[in-house]
Structures are given as structure tokens and as C-alpha cells.
């Protein structure tokens, strides 16, 4: 784990002017640069889709509001959902995987660096194509603009009879591009983990983040074809006269739902597992203890991956499945709660007996644990099919999945930002701004999404652009909108912090958190080649062994 400099021939044509640096980004195949590009682009889409959410909330602030036209509103929630899943969640996973996996397993780059770059550009252009629909889609007949069919685009609303013009085609084609990106990135990460681990790093010595990345990327490979296949069928329906989903010619609308959720439910876990991964690295370091029950955590993650492939139709309890079908999917959904519960208990077990430091990354982890607990419990409620008949497609569901995707996923990812930013940039994010960000975001989050549960219980359906007074929804929606503004402020603080700290942050040094995994053994930011000499490890916590030669981990594992 020596960190002495070694000389690498550098192409001197790449100077430091803006154009040169831009050129450097375009031609790079470096996993760290690509990782940061993934994350940076995702943050850009997060801001755009977040602003759409704010506009949606402003429209709903009072009954019968006329801030947004119905069609504009419908496009916004479609673009918001599609962007958040495909242009924020997926690339952030790819970004974290790209940046961290090679550093954590002690190698110098991904298995396929060029493929890696290809994946990023597919994602970027897919995302740009989706947003280009605002300009390109109206066409000569003036039909439509951006997609307005909802992020799960239920048939037959997407058929040419009900979705004229090309907006739905933009939705299909742009997502197929980003899916290509996600697929090659998944293949790359899996290959890297399997083939490029440093000497001594057996599978069961990998940091948990690497394990979880392995599972989540396998899930991407299994789940995405369901979506891509359905999208291809839809495209054939729309342009070549097939009738897969054409109900007026004997097609089935329900089969689209099956295809979509065979992808869509694993997708939720594809997003959640990387957040679990961040937690599994950060909680131990800030509790000063190794992760509790490492092998159980690996097994529980694999179980989640497996079971989550068999729960998709719990999104479809109201489509008229038989009672046997409904019971099956209720049971499989309950089962996924067991490994999930085990994971929560193991994080608690890690904290127990430790010395917990409340730095910003840890605060976000605590927020995650608390909110993920609630999200899990509302998930149990939704798995009870009869309860689900009341709750599904209401604001209760909106609140539930924002609890998982914001309260848990985004909190976990933010924890990761604060934790690894010093490694990537060489400087710390400002702690005070970070605390403001955490508290404002947590308060705004709870204002918005706690209240939306109640709106759902009071019968408010999702995806409505307006509502009448007198249903008991008015105050709740007002509070929810205020919360959205608070959250937006918090994200603004994060953006300021990220930009400011590049130049003004405190120097981080190699290992600011006194952590134990390999990425902290090299400089911050790491050199192009990551490690001067490829490290050799003897345990799950190589840096612990180095710091505590009197009590190394390898004696116990």
C-alpha cells in the first residue's frame, strides 16, 4: 500500500484550458472520470426533474389551481418519474460503481474501459433525447410535446389511437438508449468484480459495497430485458401494425403491465441496493466497528435480489387477478420483508457497542434507517392485497415510494456524497452547510411525504392535476408543497457546497474518516493509475490491519 509517485507518460497535448479539459472528458476511458461524469450528469437531471416536482406541487397547493394546464402537468409527472428513475437513479448507481469498485478491489481500471465510456455516452444521449421531445415531438401536426403517458406508460394509452404524434416514441427510444448504457455498465462492473480483484481479495473479503454492486448489476441484466422487449413490441405495434397491446384487435393491456413490472419491481431494488451499499460502508466507519454479520448481509442481499424477481404483480392487485394470484404475490412480497429486516437489524447491530460519530454522512445514514423503516412498514401494508385495493394509485403509494426513493435511496446516496467527496476531490465538503442541508432536507422531506400518506388515506388519487375543495385534502397539500420548497432549498445548499468545496474545502488527506477499505490507502484524488503498486489484502479491512498490527482482522476471519 505504498503511495509513492510513479511517472506515467502524459499526453502533453492535453493542457488545462477549458477546451482541453472538455476534450479530456470526451475522450476519457478512466473509470474515475467516467464515474464522476455519471454522477455529475445525474445531479443535473436531478435538479431538472426536481424542479418539475416543485412545479407539480405548486399546481396542487390549492384546490382548482390553474398554474399548470392539465397536459403540461401530465407531461411533468411523466418526465419527473422517468427522469428520476432512468436519468438519476440508474446513472448514480453506475457512477458509484465505476468510481468505487476498482478502488475498493485494488485495481487500476474497469475490465472494459472503452465499453465504460460507451455506456456513459449512451446514457447521456438517451437522456438528452428524452428532453429533446419538448422541441422535436410536436411535429407538423402539432400533436403532443414531451411524453405524457406516465412513467409506466400503461397500454393502451400508448397506442397511436390515444397517443398521437411522436412523444411516446421519444419515451421508448430514449429509454432504450439509456438501457443499453445501463446494460454495458452492468456487464462491465460484474466483469471487473469477478476478474480484477487484487491478490488476497477473495469474494468473501470484498467490501460489502462491492458485493452489493455485484448483486444489483446482475439484477439489471435480468430485469432490463423485460422493459426493452416490451418497448420493442410497443414500437412494432405503433409502426408496423402489430397488436401485442392493441386491445381493439385482441391484444392485451394487462400483458404490458406484467412486462413492465417484471422490470419495474426489481428496478426498485436495483436502486435500493446501492443505497444499502453506501450504508454498509459508512455505518461501520462512523460506529468504529466492522459490519455486523458480514456473511449474513451478503446472503440477505442475494435473497432480496432473488425474491424481488417474483413480486412484480403486487403492483397489479387491482387488474382482476384471481384470488389465488393475488394471494401468491402478497405472500412473495411479505417474504422480501424478511431479508430486508435482517439488513436493518445488522446495521443496528453494527452501531451497538460502537462509538458513533455524528458527522454528516452518518446523519444521512440515520435518516435513511429511520425512513427506510417506515417505508418498509408502509410496504407491508401495501402487500396486504385487500388494503392495497384501497391504497394503490392513491397518494399513500406516492408517499410510500418517495419514502423509499427519496427518504432511503437519496439519503443513502447523499451519505455517499459526503463520505467519498473528499476522496474524489481532495477536499472536504463544508460541514456546516452539510448540516443545514441535512436538517432542511429531512424537515422538508417529512413535511411533504408524511402528509401525502394522509391525503391518500383520505382518498386522493395520484396523478390528478387538480382537485375540488371539501375532501379534506387542502391543508395536507399546502403543507406538502411547503415541504417541497424546503427540500429544493436544501438541494440548492448541496449544490453550493459541492461547487464551493472544490476550491475552498479543507484539504482531506488520504484518509479523512479513519476508514478501512482500500480506496483510502491512495491519495485524494487518486492518481490515474490508482495504486502505485497493486495492494495485497489479508482481510475485509486491509487498512485496519495496517493501523492495528497488534490486533489484525485476519486473525479472526
Amino acid at each position, binding site marked *: 500500500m505504498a503511495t509513492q509517485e510513479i511517472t506515467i507518460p502524459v499526453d502533453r497535448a492535453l493542457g488545462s484550458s477549458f477546451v482541453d479539459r472538455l476534450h479530456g472528458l470526451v475522450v476519457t476511458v478512466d473509470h474515475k472520470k467516467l464515474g464522476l461524469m455519471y454522477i455529475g450528469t445525474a445531479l443535473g437531471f436531478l435538479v431538472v426533474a426536481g424542479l418539475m416536482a416543485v412545479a407539480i406541487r405548486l399546481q396542487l397547493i390549492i384546490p382548482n389551481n390553474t398554474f399548470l394546464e392539465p*397536459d403540461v402537468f401530465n407531461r411533468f409527472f411523466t418526465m419527473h418519474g422517468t427522469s428520476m428513475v432512468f436519468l438519476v437513479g440508474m446513472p448514480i448507481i453506475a457512477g458509484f460503481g465505476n468510481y468505487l469498485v476498482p478502488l475498493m478491489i485494488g485495481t487500476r481500471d474497469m475490465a472494459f474501459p472503452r465499453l465504460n465510456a460507451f455506456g456513459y455516452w449512451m446514457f447521456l444521449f438517451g437522456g438528452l433525447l428524452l428532453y429533446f421531445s419538448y422541441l422535436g415531438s410536436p411535429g407538423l401536426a402539432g400533436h403532443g410535446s414531451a411524453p405524457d403517458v*406516465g412513467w409506466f406508460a*400503461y*397500454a*393502451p*394509452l400508448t397506442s397511436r389511437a*390515444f397517443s398521437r404524434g411522436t412523444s411516446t416514441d421519444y419515451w421508448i427510444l430514449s429509454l432504450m438508449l439509456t438501457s443499453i448504457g445501463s446494460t454495458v455498465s452492468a456487464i462491465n462492473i460484474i466483469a471487473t468484480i469477478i476478474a480484477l480483484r487484487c491478490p488476497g481479495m477473495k469474494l468473501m473479503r470484498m467490501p460489502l459495497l462491492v458485493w452489493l454492486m455485484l448483486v444489483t448489476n446482475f439484477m439489471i441484466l435480468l430485469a432490463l430485458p423485460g422493459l426493452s422487449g416490451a418497448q420493442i413490441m410497443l414500437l412494432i405495434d405503433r409502426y408496423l401494425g402489430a397488436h401485442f397491446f392493441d*386491445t381493439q384487435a*385482441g391484444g392485451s*393491456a394487462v400483458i404490458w403491465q406484467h412486462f413492465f413490472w417484471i422490470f419495474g419491481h426489481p428496478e426498485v431494488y436495483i436502486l435500493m441496493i446501492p443505497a444499502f451499499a453506501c450504508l454498509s460502508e459508512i455505518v461501520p466507519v462512523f460506529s468504529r466497528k466492522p459490519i455486523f*454479520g*458480514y456473511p*449474513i448481509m451478503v446472503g440477505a442481499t442475494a435473497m432480496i435480489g432473488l425474491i424481488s424477481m417474483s413480486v412484480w404483480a403486487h403492483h397489479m392487485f*387491482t*387488474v*382482476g387477478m384471481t*384470488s389465488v394470484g393475488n*394471494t401468491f404475490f*402478497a405472500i412473495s412480497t*411479505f417474504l422480501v420483508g*424478511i431479508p430486508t*429486516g*435482517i439488513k436493518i437489524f445488522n446495521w*443496528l*447491530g453494527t*452501531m*451497538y*457497542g*460502537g*462509538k*458513533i460519530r*455524528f458527522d454528516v454522512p452518518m*446523519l444521512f445514514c*440515520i435518516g435513511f434507517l*429511520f425512513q427506510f*423503516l417506515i417505508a418498509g*412498514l408502509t410496504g407491508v*401494508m401495501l*402487500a396486504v392485497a*385487500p388494503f392495497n385495493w*384501497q391504497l*394503490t*394509485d*392513491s397518494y399513500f403509494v406516492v408517499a410510500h415510494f418517495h419514502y423509499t426513493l427519496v427518504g432511503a435511496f437519496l439519503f443513502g446516496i447523499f451519505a455517499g456524497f459526503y463520505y467519498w467527496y473528499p476522496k474524489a476531490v481532495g477536499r472536504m465538503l463544508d460541514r*456546516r452547510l452539510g*448540516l443545514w442541508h441535512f436538517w432542511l432536507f429531512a424537515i422538508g422531506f*417529512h413535511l411533504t411525504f*408524511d402528509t401525502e400518506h*394522509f391525503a391518500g*388515506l*383520505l382518498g386522493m*388519487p395520484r*396523478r*390528478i392535476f387538480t382537485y375540488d375543495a*371539501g*375532501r*379534506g*385534502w387542502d391543508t395536507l397539500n399546502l403543507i406538502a408543497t411547503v415541504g417541497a420548497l424546503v427540500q429544493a432549498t436544501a438541494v440548492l445548499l448541496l449544490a453550493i457546497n459541492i461547487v464551493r468545496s472544490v476550491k475552498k474545502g479543507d484539504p482531506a488527506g488520504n484518509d479523512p474518516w479513519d476508514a478501512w477499505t482500500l480506496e483510502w490507502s491512495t491519495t485524494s484524488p487518486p492518481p490515474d493509475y490508482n495504486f502505485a503498486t497493486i495492494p495485497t489484502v489479508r482481510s475485509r479491512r486491509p487498512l485496519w490491519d495496517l493501523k492495528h498490527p497488534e*490486533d489484525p482482522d485476519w486473525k479472526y*476471519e
Partner: protein
Amino acid sequence: MRRQLFGNQRALRGFFLLMLALICIIALGHGEPVFGIDGGVTNIFKPLAQPAQEIKETSFLVLAVCAVIFVVVAGLLLYGLIRFRHRAGDDGSEPPQVYGSNQIELAWTVLPVLIVFVLILVTSRTIADIQDRKPPQGTLQTTIVGHQWWWEIRYPGLNIVTANELHVPASDGRGPRPTFLKLQSADVAHSFWVPQLAGKTDLIPNRENLMWIEPTKPGTYLGNCAEYCGTQHARMLIRVVVHSSDEFDRWVTEQQKNASVATNADEGRKAFFANSCVNCHTIRGTSAQGKFGPDLTHLMSREMLAAGVVPNTPDNLRRWVRDPQKIKVGCLMPNMQLTDQEVDHITAYLQTLK
């Protein structure tokens, strides 16, 4: 100093207590006024019919289980954070390094398994109970057809067709009179949801779904389309009017009549039949037999216009005939570019359809 204020445990503890209080409201405040807001007419925890009542009972059991889990786990989390926090005078040594314990892992695996087992039993019983119910003697059979963005309501045995307002009998002294709803769609997927009566069931084209309701209390119940179905999804409202048994029979008799042939609106009738209104609307007993829009035979017996958007007043009716797009932008009834006189006449004619 400020750092301490934000980062310390007291703020954290306060935050957790606040959240705990909120969750308790969810768990205990069901159906009661929340934040001083009365649950209102679409509260799923104020059911006034089967199967909504049975769903509520199952839900409460689940809520109770979840509340207990929440209190235990959040309590453990909170306790751990406080008890094992990094203290000011700490000597900087690392705590004992514990790697795990198979006994403990086994314990917190078995416990969730037991809970899941209970939930499975409760859930499957309720599913079978509600879904597999057979229609008893005296059941009212109806067919609901979803359209963008209104509901067609048919009573096949009674020769009645109406729209947006489903009239059903209550199960009162005369014995159980549940209503079975056959759900279909003419275009895209919709979902029928009247929270106080039952959970949702989707209306899906090229498919037939079934649900039932058995209200006991006369009154008007509100609901919405709950599956996104295009531009005016938000304004696809449903009302269910529950009558006492006798009153329902009277309503049926009224609705079975053909359209009234009043003589005071001849010009309106002529205008109606001379324009393309008849291509989309049916008025039973006349040559207007269009199927695309709502049946207008007894239009004036309905409380609302445009699937619950505005009350059915002469003024609103006139505005609707003049330009439906002003009231419900994007709806499939076009502005017919009628003259003021035609609008007046047609409105007057429609008002005879009692």
C-alpha cells in the same frame, strides 16, 4: 457552537420524537380528524359498506402490527444512537471489534418469519372472502364502461343506461341487496374507486373485471378514476347514490321510461337533431342513438355535468353546450360552434329530459 446545536444528540432525539408522534397519529388517529381535518367523504377508514368495512378491519390489524414493529425498531435505533454515541471525554481508543453472532442473526430472522406467517393468514382469508363472493339472490347486476373521461352505467336486466352516477339500493330491512359491477373499458385503462364502499378495481379494455358493493346507508358517495387515463384523468369523478330499497324501485321505474316528449321545446329538439349531437348521444325513444357520449335520456335526473365537474344547473348546461372545452379542456366533446340562439334552444330542450 452552532455545530454542536446541529450535530448533537438532543436535536436528533427531538427529531425522532416528532416523527414518532406523527406515526402514532397514523396508527391511532385513523378515521378521526387528523390535524383538525375531518376525514370527509372519501376517507378509507370511514367505510359505510361492505367490502370497505372488512378491508378496514384487516387494515387495522396490519396497522397495529406495523406500529408495534415501528416502536420496537425505532426505539432500538434511538437507544443505540444515544447509548453508543461518541462522548466528549473519550480516550480515542477503538471499541471492541465484534464481527457478528449467529444466535442473534437467527433470532432476528425467526421473529419476522413468524410475523409474516400471521400476515399471510390474515391476508389470504380476506382476499378469498371478498374476491370469491358469489352473488346471492336479489343481486343487482350492473355494467360500468370506462370512457375517456366519463363512466357509462348500464343495468342490463332493467333496460336502463345512464352515466357518471351509479344508483344502487341499500341492504336494509328487505334483506341483502348487493350490487355486482361488471367492469369494462371502451378505450384505455381506468379504475373504479369509491373509498367508502370498496377498494379499487380496474376497467381494462378487452377484459371484464368484477367487483361488488353492499352499502347499508342511503346517501351519496364520491370517488375518482384511480388509473391515469389521459388529459382529464383528474376530472373523471364518480358518484354512487344509495337509495333505500323502496326508493330505488321508484328510481328504476322513472329511468325505464322513454324520454319525455315535451312540446315546449320544439325548436331545441329540431336543432339537436339537425346538428351532429345525435352521432354521439342516445335519447331513448327518439332517433338519437349515438353510442360515443353519455346517454341523455334522463339527463336532468343527474346531479352533475361532465363526470362530476360542475353541478347540473341550467347555466352550467348552457355553458357546456356552448363550449365544453371551457369547462373541461381536452374532453372529447368538441365546441360545435353553435349560434347563441341554437345554444339557448338546445339547452331548453335538454332541460325537458327529466
